[in-house]
């Protein structure tokens, strides 16, 4: 409303109430009486204000604001009773009404407050008046006219201002609604909070037509916040600018409010130190809201204006709504991250499980690493159930899992089956599959039990051998006694018939037959008896040399040579010397039986990656080569089987015993293909 119009209205109003020069004079006369009681009136006024929540609510600036308001009231009283009642007087009243709109004071209370002031003022005049009651009557009427006029201007100003503001406010409300909708939509679209905040500061600045806006974010460093997103901020500061948020700082103050805080005029701000903004020099008004999640503070969202701007409760609520949307988005993102992290951990757990696991859903297979290692195929190659079936060469029986199985504590069926699969490298392995079936999927735990099965077979074999061994030992003991008696008698017989050469010859043959019988018993017992190693550090080459010495009688009259190729791999190993000599002796005896002269035996070694029932490790492989006819295909296949022999004499236990002895060392022994004529065997023993 134009000022001239206001002035004109006021003059019309004065005429209406009949305000005259006499009224003005009487009011001036009353002035000293009222002024004397000013403090009383002011105190009464604010005491009453404090008693009503609606009026207290508009005083947001604490005692300092109350002091300022008291000063305003004193000024108003002085102004009202001293004049001059010119146009500028009217405009000052008009400002009061406008100010009431600013602070959102309910008009009802303006009337009530005025009524109280009126009572106080009239009372003050009445009690101090020394003249006639007629004069007093006139004076009070004039004062009443003055107060009515003041109230009328204030009321008019309030209404005019309220009306004029209402329209932009409505528009503002619509804009704010739209911004909330936009922000919510973006938050719900799963936009990263980082990006969401960048958009929020822009949307807010546009909506408020603000100079700048920003989000300050807490950092793990106590008391240190960083400018996370900014609109209207100098480029380069976003992401780099750090501010103080320690107790007592502006940020600390804002957080403590827990809801939006507005500062309409930095110039008269008294609640906190105007140190907050780097850009505060160019800022007149600001509004903030703390960003809070269930876990604590995230930061503060602020909007700033270079021109002074009124910031009402609606603006505060709007900021609060924006903060709520952001808070929800932050929490959702946090829980998404957490869920993702958990899923990732679970996936890693399953994938890195040292046991094979396969997940089967809708005909598709998912193998973990251990399962990949077990089959030799990667998960891209075994995608479906049919792929799995194609590598199964033999399907075992399916049974119900044992009661103690953990999986049985869950609903669904648990079965155990064994399958022989062909690995990618062609190896056949025995796999035990424990399958947990639910309606929608299956989980298989797969174990390679090939080695366990081999161990079981070996243990069974050992058990059987032990039983045989025990029997043989008893048999051998008794037969030794019998052989002893035969020997005793033959020797005595020799004395009695020492003049009869043909009888002596028969006795000698009898003696050889006894020796053969004896050796047979020894070998069977050696094969069947449990092997107890007495390991001592020694070199394999020295045991071969010793074996060579032991077969001196065998070598007699033969053209035979042993060559041990020197090698740095011929290291000191923990071996049972006696047993190793026995092994080489068996090999040498076989070679001497198979080879025609000249007999040439060559042995060499190299380091080996050794894999045995005790795992994979470093070892030494010794190669033993003769120049005989080599092994026939049949002999290759059965060389290590007990009672297999190519010799006309012998039990066929030699190589079986040798294999047992090497096995007892944790080693391996095998026939190997050679690039030269003759038989070649490889003995691998681990380094212990």
């Amino acid at each position: 409303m134009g000022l001239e119009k206001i002035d004109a209205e006021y003059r019309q109003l004065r005429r209406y109430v009949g305000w005259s020069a006499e009224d003005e004079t009487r009011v001036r006369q009353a002035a000293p009486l009222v002024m004397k009681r000013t403090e009383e009136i002011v105190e009464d006024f604010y005491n009453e204000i404090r008693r009503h929540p609606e009026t207290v609510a508009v005083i947001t600036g604490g005692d300092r604001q109350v002091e300022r308001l008291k000063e305003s009231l004193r000024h108003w009283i002085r102004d009202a009773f001293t004049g001059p009642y010119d146009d500028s007087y009217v405009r000052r009243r008009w400002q009061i009404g406008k100010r009431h709109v600013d602070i959102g004071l309910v008009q009802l209370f303006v009337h009530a407050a005025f009524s109280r002031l009126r009572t106080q003022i009239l009372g003050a005049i009445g009690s101090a008046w020394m003249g006639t009651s007629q004069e007093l009557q006139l004076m009070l009427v004039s004062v009443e006219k003055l107060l009515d006029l003041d109230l009328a201007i204030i009321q008019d100003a309030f209404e005019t201002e309220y009306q004029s503001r209402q329209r932009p406010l409505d528009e503002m409300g619509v804009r704010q609604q739209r911004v909330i909708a936009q922000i919510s939509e973006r938050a719900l679209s799963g936009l990263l909070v980082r990006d969401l905040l960048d958009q929020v500061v822009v949307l807010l600045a546009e909506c408020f037509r603000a100079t700048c806006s920003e989000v300050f974010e807490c950092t793990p460093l106590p008391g240190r916040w960083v400018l996370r997103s900014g609109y209207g901020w100098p480029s380069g500061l976003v992401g780099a600018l750090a501010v103080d948020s320690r107790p007592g700082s502006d940020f600390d103050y804002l957080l403590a409010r827990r809801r939006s805080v507005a500062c309409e005029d930095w110039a008269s701000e008294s609640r906190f130190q105007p140190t907050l903004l780097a850009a505060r020099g160019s800022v007149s008004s600001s509004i903030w809201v703390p960003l809070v999640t269930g876990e604590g503070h995230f930061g503060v969202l602020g909007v700033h204006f270079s021109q002074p701007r009124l910031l009402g409760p609606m603006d505060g609520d709007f900021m609060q709504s924006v903060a709520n949307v952001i808070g929800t988005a932050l929490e959702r993102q946090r829980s998404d991250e957490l869920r993702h992290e958990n899923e990732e951990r679970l996936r890693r757990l399953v994938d890195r499980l040292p046991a094979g696991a396969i997940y089967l859903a809708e005909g598709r297979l998912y193998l973990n690493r251990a399962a990949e290692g077990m089959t030799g195929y990667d998960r891209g190659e075994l995608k479906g159930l049919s792929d799995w079936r194609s590598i199964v060469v033999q399907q075992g029986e399916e049974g119900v899992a044992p009661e103690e199985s953990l999986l049985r504590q869950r609903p669904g069926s648990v079965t155990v089956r064994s399958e022989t699969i062909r690995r990618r490298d062609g190896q056949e392995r025995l796999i035990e599959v424990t399958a947990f079936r639910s309606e929608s999927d299956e989980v298989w735990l797969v174990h390679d039990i090939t080695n366990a099965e081999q161990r079981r077979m070996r243990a069974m074999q050992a058990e059987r051998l032990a039983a045989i061994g025990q029997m043989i030992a008893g048999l051998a003991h008794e037969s030794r006694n019998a052989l002893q008696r035969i020997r005793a008698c033959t020797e005595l017989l020799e004395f009695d018939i020492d003049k009869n050469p043909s009888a002596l010859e028969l006795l000698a043959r009898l003696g050889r037959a006894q020796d053969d019988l004896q050796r047979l018993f020894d070998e069977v017992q050696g094969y069947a008896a449990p092997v107890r190693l007495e390991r001592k550090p020694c070199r394999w080459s020295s045991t071969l040399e010793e074996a060579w010495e032991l077969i001196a009688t065998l070598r007699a009259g033969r053209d035979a040579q042993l060559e041990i190729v020197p090698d740095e791999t011929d290291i000191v190993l923990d071996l049972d010397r006696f047993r190793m000599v026995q092994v080489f002796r068996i090999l040498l005896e076989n070679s001497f039986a198979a080879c025609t002269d000249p007999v040439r035996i060559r042995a060499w070694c190299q380091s080996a990656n050794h894999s045995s029932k005790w795992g994979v490790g470093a070892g030494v492989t010794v190669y033993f080569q003769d120049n005989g006819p080599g092994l026939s295909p049949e002999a290759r296949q059965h060389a290590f089987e007990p009672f297999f022999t190519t010799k006309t004499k012998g039990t066929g236990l030699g190589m079986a015993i040798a294999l047992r002895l090497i096995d007892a060392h944790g080693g391996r022994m095998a026939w190997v293909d050679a690039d030269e004529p003759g038989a070649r065997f490889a003995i691998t023993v681990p380094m212990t």
Partner: protein
Amino acid sequence: MNPQPEWPLPHDAIPSGEGRGKRLWPARPLRIAVADDEPDMREYLERILPRLGHQVVASARTGVELLSAYHREHPDLIITDIRMPELSGDAAVQQIRQTQMVPVILISAYARGASENETTLELCSRLRKPVGRSELEAAIKSLADEVADGLMPTALDGEEADHD
């Protein structure tokens, strides 16, 4: 201190020319006590040992008989089977050796490693059946060498008179 069993002095154990403190087995004949529950084996030993130049002074069927024979005859050498009724050969030898040292040949039918608690005894040869004259001769010779190599404990010299 490890008490040394009293060294039994075989008759004429000290060659006349030797000084005190060193005793040797007589070259031969040795006075030998044999023990075996098998009559064939006893007969064999009784007949074969004289042919090797030794004298069988006692022939026992059990460990108990061996003990009494030993205390009666004080032989230079014991040749005994291990498994015998009443008292085993090695147990009888252990009893004797608690007080007196005598060279021993133990004969058993066990194979290598079959008997777990084979302790190594001083002046003791172990033979496995079947045993012939060559094995016996070799065992006796190796014991004789061991005796010859051994220095007798001088502290026991004064007790020679106890044995007769």
